[in-house]
C-alpha cells in the first residue's frame, strides 16, 4: 500500500464510526421522511403502496403561507434579539474577573436543570391573567387589566427567546473568551472610538461564535412546536404545530413528512450558506478603500 493510500485508509478509519452513526441515525431517517412524502396515505394512518405527488400538491393549503411566514419571522426575530442580548452578555462574562465569570456562567446554565416543559408551563403561570407578572404589571399600571399576555405570537416570541438565549450566549462567550483584547486597545490606539473598535474589531473577531449562535437559535426556533402549543393561541401556530397535528391528529404521515421535508430544506439552505460562507477559508481579496468610500 502506498503511503497516500495508507493515509486515506487511516482517515476513513478515524471518521468511519461517526460517519456510520450519522448515516444510520440521521441521513437514512431523513431520507425516509423525504421518501414518505411521495407515498399515498391510508385512512388508518399508514402508508399506502405506490408513489404519488398528491401530497406535494396538498401543500398548497391556503392556510400554509401564513403559518410559514409566521414561522420564519418568529425565528428570524427571535434569533436577532437573542444575538442582540447574547453579544453584550458574552462580552461581559468573558471580561468579568475569574470568580464572577464562573458564577455568571452557572447562572446561564442553571435553567437547563429544570425540564424544558416545566419551564414553559412556568411562563404560562407567570403570564396567566391571574399570574404574578400580570398582576404586578396591572398593579404598576403598566398594563390594563383586560390585556392578554398569553396566547399570542409575541408571547411565543418571548418564550422562544427565553428558551434559546443560553444557546446563543454560550458560543458567543466561548469566542469572546478566546478573543485577544489587546486588539481592542490597538484599535483604540489607532483612533477608533469604543463603538467602532467593538464593531470593526471585536465583532469580526468573534464572528465564528456569532454564526454558531445564529444556527443554535434559528434552527430550533424554526422547528419549535411545544412553545407555540403551550403559550401560543390559535393565531400563533408554527410549522411544527402543523406537523404534530398531521401526525397525531390527522394520522396523515405523508403530509407530515412533506411539511417536515420542507422544514428540513428550510434549515439546510441557510446552514449550507453559512458553512460555505464562513467555515471555508474565504479567498483573500483586496478590499481597498471599502470603508473609506462610506
Amino acid at each position, binding site marked *: 500500500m502506498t503511503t497516500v493510500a495508507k493515509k486515506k485508509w487511516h482517515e476513513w478509519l478515524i471518521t468511519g464510526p461517526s460517519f456510520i452513526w450519522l448515516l444510520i441515525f440521521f441521513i437514512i431517517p431523513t431520507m425516509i421522511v423525504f421518501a414518505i412524502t411521495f407515498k399515498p396515505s391510508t385512512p388508518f394512518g399508514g402508508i399506502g403502496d405506490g408513489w404519488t405527488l398528491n401530497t406535494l400538491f396538498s401543500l398548497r393549503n391556503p392556510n400554509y403561507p401564513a403559518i410559514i411566514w409566521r414561522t420564519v419571522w418568529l425565528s428570524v426575530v427571535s434569533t436577532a434579539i437573542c444575538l442582540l442580548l447574547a453579544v453584550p452578555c458574552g462580552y461581559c462574562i468573558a471580561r468579568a474577573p475569574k470568580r464572577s465569570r464562573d458564577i455568571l456562567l452557572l447562572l446561564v446554565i442553571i435553567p437547563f436543570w429544570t425540564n424544558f416543559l416545566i419551564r414553559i408551563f412556568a411562563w404560562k403561570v407567570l403570564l396567566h391573567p391571574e399570574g404574578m407578572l400580570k398582576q404586578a404589571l396591572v398593579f404598576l399600571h403598566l398594563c390594563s387589566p383586560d390585556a392578554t399576555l398569553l396566547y399570542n405570537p409575541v408571547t411565543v416570541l418571548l418564550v422562544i427567546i427565553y428558551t434559546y438565549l443560553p444557546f446563543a450566549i454560550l458560543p458567543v462567550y466561548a469566542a469572546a473568551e478566546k478573543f485577544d483584547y489587546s486588539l481592542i486597545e490597538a484599535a483604540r*490606539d489607532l483612533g477608533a472610538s469604543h463603538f467602532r473598535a467593538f464593531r470593526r474589531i471585536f465583532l469580526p473577531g468573534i464572528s465564528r461564535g456569532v454564526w454558531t449562535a445564529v444556527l443554535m437559535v434559528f434552527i430550533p426556533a424554526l422547528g419549535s412546536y411545544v412553545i407555540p402549543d403551550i403559550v401560543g393561541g390559535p393565531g400563533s401556530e408554527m410549522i411544527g404545530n402543523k406537523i404534530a397535528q398531521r401526525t397525531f391528529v390527522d394520522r396523515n404521515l405523508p403530509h407530515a413528512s412533506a411539511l417536515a421535508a420542507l422544514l428540513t430544506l428550510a434549515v439546510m439552505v441557510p446552514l449550507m450558506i453559512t458553512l460555505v460562507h464562513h467555515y471555508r477559508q474565504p479567498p483573500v481579496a483586496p478590499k481597498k478603500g471599502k470603508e473609506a468610500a462610506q
Partner: protein
Amino acid sequence: MADFLVFEGVSKHYGEIRAVDSVSLSINKGEIFSLLGPSGCGKTTLLRCCAGFEAPDAGRIILDGRDITGLPPHERKVNTVFQNYALFPHLTIRDNIAFGPRMARWTKGEIDKEVARMLELIQMEDYADRKVTEISGGQKQRVAIARALINRPQVLLLDEPLAALDLKLRQRMLVELDAIHDEVGITFVYVTHDQGEAMGISDRIAAMNRGRIEQIGRPVEIYEAPRSSFVAAFIGDTNFFDGIVTEVMDGPYCRLRIEGFPDVLAWNDKGLLPGNAVHLSLRPEKFKIWRELPEPLPNRNLVQGTVEDVIYLGSHTKYWVRVEDYRLGLHQQHSRYLLDTRPITWGEKVWLSWFADDSCMLERYKAEDENLLVLPDTEAEPARA
C-alpha cells in the same frame, strides 16, 4: 526641541502596589528615549499611561505643550507598537496599515498613497494582500510599526517590540528600527528590559526600578557613570566595593581603604574627604589580567589573586578571581587569544590591573542590588562580591 513629552509626577497604583511612583521626566522631540528596567519596574505602565490605556492616579502628561492626561486613546496623537503586535487577524496587511487612516476618515486616494508609501518603507509591497497569519514574526513587527507610523503620530510608543523575535532577527530589526527613525524623525519612546537593545538604539535612557527612575542619561553615561548600585548592576555587570577615603591625592584621585581588600586608588569625582564612606562600582572589562607582574604605572591599581572560575565565551572570557575577601568578576577580550600560547586558567596566581579613572563612585547603594550580578556562588563559602 526639549520638553516635547513631559511626565510630571505621574503615579499609578494597583491596590497596594505602586507601579509608577511619581515619575517626572522630559523627552526631547525627535529622540529615541528608552525606558529600561526589569519586569515589574513600571515601564510598561508608564507607557500605557502615555497611550491612554491607563489613567494615572496623580500627575500630568504633557505632549507638545498640551495636557493629554485625561484624553482617551483615540484622541491622542500617539501610536503604539504592541509587544505581541496586536495585528488584526481578520484583515490583510494592507487593511491593517490602512486602519488608522480609515478611522480618521482620510480620502481613499490619500489612504492608498500613504499605505503604498508605508509598504515601501517596510519593504513589504509584495505581501500587501496577505493575511496576518501568513507572514513571519519579523514581518509582523514591521507591519505593526507601519500601522502606527501611518497616522503620523507625534510620539511612537514601542512596548518591548522585539521581545518575541529571536536574537539575530532582533539585532537586524534594531538596525531597521533605527533606520526608520532616521527616515521619519518621529519621537520614539522605547520600552525594554534588554539593556543591549536600549544601549544600541537610544539617544537617552531612563533606568527604572520599582516604579521610580534611577537615572536618566545617554547610554555612555548610564554605563560608565552609574549613579546607583541598581543601575550599575542591572545595566551590564559590575563589581561593588565599599570603603573609606583615607587620603585625597593631588589631582582628582583619592586612596580608599577597603576591608578585606588591598588599598585602591579611585577617581574622586564626588570630591570626597578623608573619612567619607564610599561605594565603588568597577565594570568587569576594566580589568586587565596578567600572569607576570606588569610594570607599575601611575594611577593604575595592581592586586594579586587566584583564578577560581573561567568561562570561555568566544569573543571574551569571563574570569572570577579571588582577591583576599573579594571575588572579582572580569572580562578579558580575545584580541590575541590564539597568539597567547597558554591561556590563563583555573587555580593560577594572577595579577589584576585597572586604572583609577575606570571605577565609579555610587551615590546610592542598596545591598540587595548585588543579587542582580551574574557572579555564580561558590559552594564552599559565601560569595563576597
